[in-house]
């Protein structure tokens, strides 16, 4: 998944250092990557930003058995401009938005958007804010809308908000308001070579874990 | 209305440096292919900026190289008939003809119907230029320029693509422009007849320079200046239309000498100019008898100029003016022609080309 660029930028050299294997990272949206795998892409390992695409490949028999695990987790937050006051996630949300838009990723298509819509729905806020939701094509674009002041609020991952100096977290969605946000990783069927295994091992190791936590990801138990 | 032109321009391989005055009337630019006629037209019309010189119409400066004046073409309002027709392909013939009128000041309207009739393009009005023949295009281009109510007309070989009868229909129109409408015309032509008939002034060009400039009678009557070949030599004489005879001949009075020509469509009293080509004149030392030629002008040989070939150009002073006769050197010797010898100039009525008879410029 493209949102793992930072993490992979750090993990790849470290992995090479540790194991001598070279790592070629192809960064693109999970859907594009999954389709490429379906079309026969010569990839060894797939890391998805959500479970659906991994499930999809799994169902198609393209995932090597027993290699799938959850690499990282994330939290969903409400981001506002730098220095903005905390926001309460209740009926006052529409008032807080005023005329402005609530920036989200595509609510029916992109993971962050799907989680966000679920969270707002479970909080009973979706119907009220829905007309004001501006859906970006991915969560980074939604974040940019907030960072640039085009939208007063946006629903993004905690990792994104942490890394963007121009925004502050104004609220965090309760973890039970949406499905768990997980980044599953797995080797691909027919590509379970030594290097793939080594990489999956490495990802589960402490060094990778440290990188991920430093970037704000949670580590699944 | 007079045009004053001084131009200097260098193309790679062709240098132009000339000056001439075009007094009211028709000034014909005469010269061989490539001598610079169209270039002069372009410069006067404002379609090119010469390296230097000055162009003024009626004292109004159109271009001045030193004072960096260069009036854009649309403010000069000169009706240009281009050597190629340059019709607007997306407009019908009628729209092409109407084109100039929208930008012209009101009034002084040329009569469209009359121009269309003269040019014989009535049946073509609804067509696009792409569906016209070469000569039809040329005629529409003439009409378009005439109908734009220009201050002056620049015509670059307007009749070259036309047949003789059609030329004969259109030429009088240019004459009328010259005489009645007072629109000055700068006219390029290769045809001696057109030149003789229309020109008030002739400017003979050679290689970007003015070879000779003067009235039509002077330049064409000058046995040594025959810029486009020997057949352009001829005298231009003036006469008054005396009477129309019932047999269709018109009688002219050239300083007391009666001349008979095929019917001239003017009222008696009109001043007429005739071009008598040198090769159409015979000379006789005795008054010829029993001959079909009706015009016999007594005169005296003024000069005999042998040519490079077998010909000789004999200048004869008659009461009607100086006449040129191109005869063979053999005849000149046989008849003993020399300055002072009395002779009869014999001219057939029908030999005077219809293109060569016109109304004198006022």
């Amino acid at each position, binding site marked *: 998944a493209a949102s793992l660029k930072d993490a992979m930028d750090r993990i790849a050299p470290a992995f090479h250092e540790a194991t001598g294997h070279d790592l070629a990272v192809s960064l693109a949206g999970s859907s594009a990557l999954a389709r490429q795998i379906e079309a026969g892409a010569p990839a060894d390992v797939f890391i998805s930003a959500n479970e659906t695409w991994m499930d999809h490949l799994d169902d198609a028999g393209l995932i090597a058995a027993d290699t799938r695990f959850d690499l990282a987790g994330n939290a969903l937050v409400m981001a506002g401009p730098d220095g903005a006051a905390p926001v309460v996630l209740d009926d006052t949300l529409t008032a807080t938005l005023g005329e402005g838009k609530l920036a989200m990723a*595509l609510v029916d298509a992109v993971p962050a958007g799907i989680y966000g819509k679920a969270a707002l729905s479970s909080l009973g806020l979706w119907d009220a804010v829905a007309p004001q939701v501006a859906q*970006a094509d991915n969560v980074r674009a939604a974040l940019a809308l907030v960072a640039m002041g085009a939208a007063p609020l946006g629903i993004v991952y905690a990792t994104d908000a942490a890394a963007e100096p121009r925004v502050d977290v104004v609220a965090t969605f309760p973890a039970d308001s949406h499905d768990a946000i997980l980044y599953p990783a797995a080797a691909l069927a027919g590509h379970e070579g030594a290097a793939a295994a080594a990489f999956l091992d490495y990802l589960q190791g402490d060094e990778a874990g440290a990188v991920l936590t430093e970037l704000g990801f949670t580590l699944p138990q | 209305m007079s045009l004053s032109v001084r131009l200097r321009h260098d193309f790679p391989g062709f240098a132009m440096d000339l000056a001439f005055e075009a007094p009211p009337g028709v000034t014909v630019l005469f010269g061989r292919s490539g001598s610079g006629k169209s270039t002069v037209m372009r410069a006067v019309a404002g379609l090119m900026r010469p390296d230097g010189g000055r162009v003024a119409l009626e004292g109004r400066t159109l271009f001045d190289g030193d004072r960096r004046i260069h009036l854009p073409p649309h403010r000069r309002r000169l009706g240009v008939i281009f050597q190629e027709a340059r019709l*607007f*392909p*997306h407009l019908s013939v009628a729209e092409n003809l109407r084109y100039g009128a929208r930008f012209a000041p009101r009034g002084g309207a040329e009569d469209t119907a009359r121009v269309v009739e003269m040019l014989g393009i009535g049946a073509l009005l609804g067509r696009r230029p*792409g569906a016209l023949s070469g000569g039809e295009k040329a005629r529409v281009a003439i009409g378009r320029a005439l109908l734009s109510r220009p201050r002056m007309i620049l015509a670059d070989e307007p009749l070259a693509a036309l047949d003789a009868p059609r030329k004969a229909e259109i030429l009088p129109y240019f004459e009328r422009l010259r005489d009645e409408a007072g629109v000055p015309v700068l006219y390029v032509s290769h045809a001696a007849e057109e030149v003789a008939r229309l020109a008030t002034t002739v400017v003979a060009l050679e290689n970007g320079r003015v070879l000779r400039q003067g009235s039509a009678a002077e330049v064409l009557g000058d046995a040594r200046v025959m810029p486009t070949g020997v057949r352009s030599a001829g005298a231009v004489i003036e006469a008054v239309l005396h009477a129309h005879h019932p047999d269709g001949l018109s009688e002219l009075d050239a300083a007391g000498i009666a001349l008979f020509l095929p019917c001239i469509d003017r009222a008696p009293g009109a001043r007429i100019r005739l071009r008598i080509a040198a090769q159409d004149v015979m000379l006789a030392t005795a008054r010829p008898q029993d001959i079909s030629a009706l015009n016999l002008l007594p005169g005296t040989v003024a000069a005999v100029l042998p040519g490079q070939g077998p010909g000789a150009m004999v200048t004869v002073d008659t009461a009607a003016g100086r006449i040129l006769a191109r005869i063979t050197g053999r005849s000149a010797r046989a008849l003993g022609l020399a300055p002072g010898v009395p002779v009869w100039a014999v001219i057939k009525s029908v030999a005077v080309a219809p293109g060569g008879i016109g109304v004198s410029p006022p």
Partner: protein
Amino acid sequence: MGWLGPEEWAAVALSLKVAFWAMAASLPPGILAAYALARWRFPGRQILNGLVHLPLILPPVVTGYLLLLALGPQAPLGRALESLGLVFAFRWSGAALAAAVMGFPLLVRAIRLSIEAVDPRLEEASATLGAPPWAVFATVTLPLILPGILTGAILAFAKAMGEFGATITFVSNIPGQTRTLPSAIYAFLQVPGGEAAALRLVAVSVAVAMAALLLSEVAGRWVARRVAGA
């Protein structure tokens, strides 16, 4: 109606509106820019030329970001325009603007090509007949470059029908307001199994664009006959 839901119909209608206005609104500045590039020599000509091509060179997302930076609700220019009643951010008008910007290089290039092919001798003839420069343009140049304008327009329209990256970045994806066909198609493609729904929309999009294309061919033949003068 059967196989398209109301939201999808809304996307079709919106896309048509966006593409039409993107094309229509970019024609006047496009003709002007093409004329300036083809005919005038002025300082900054190459800069204008570069600017015109920029949306072609930049990844669409970047163009979208730049539009957002320039015309977003917080941007000074965006505010100035807002006070004039011109709001682009998160509106269909913004989608049209993004599509127009993306199609602009195509429009300008086609028209410029046509202008450069106009026979200058006809424009000269027009000037000698008394037409001032604007009239030369309106009565001679413009009619003669109609084929180029038509080509430019159909390219701009088609591009607008397909534009996605700059649009979604600039005006997001708001159903009924900025959710054009490509945005809807993209959304469908993000979920496994969305291909069939995406395909339906692709089919609609292609059908609309093909109809426009056919129309332009017919118009083109008519225009070509005029210009050929037959």
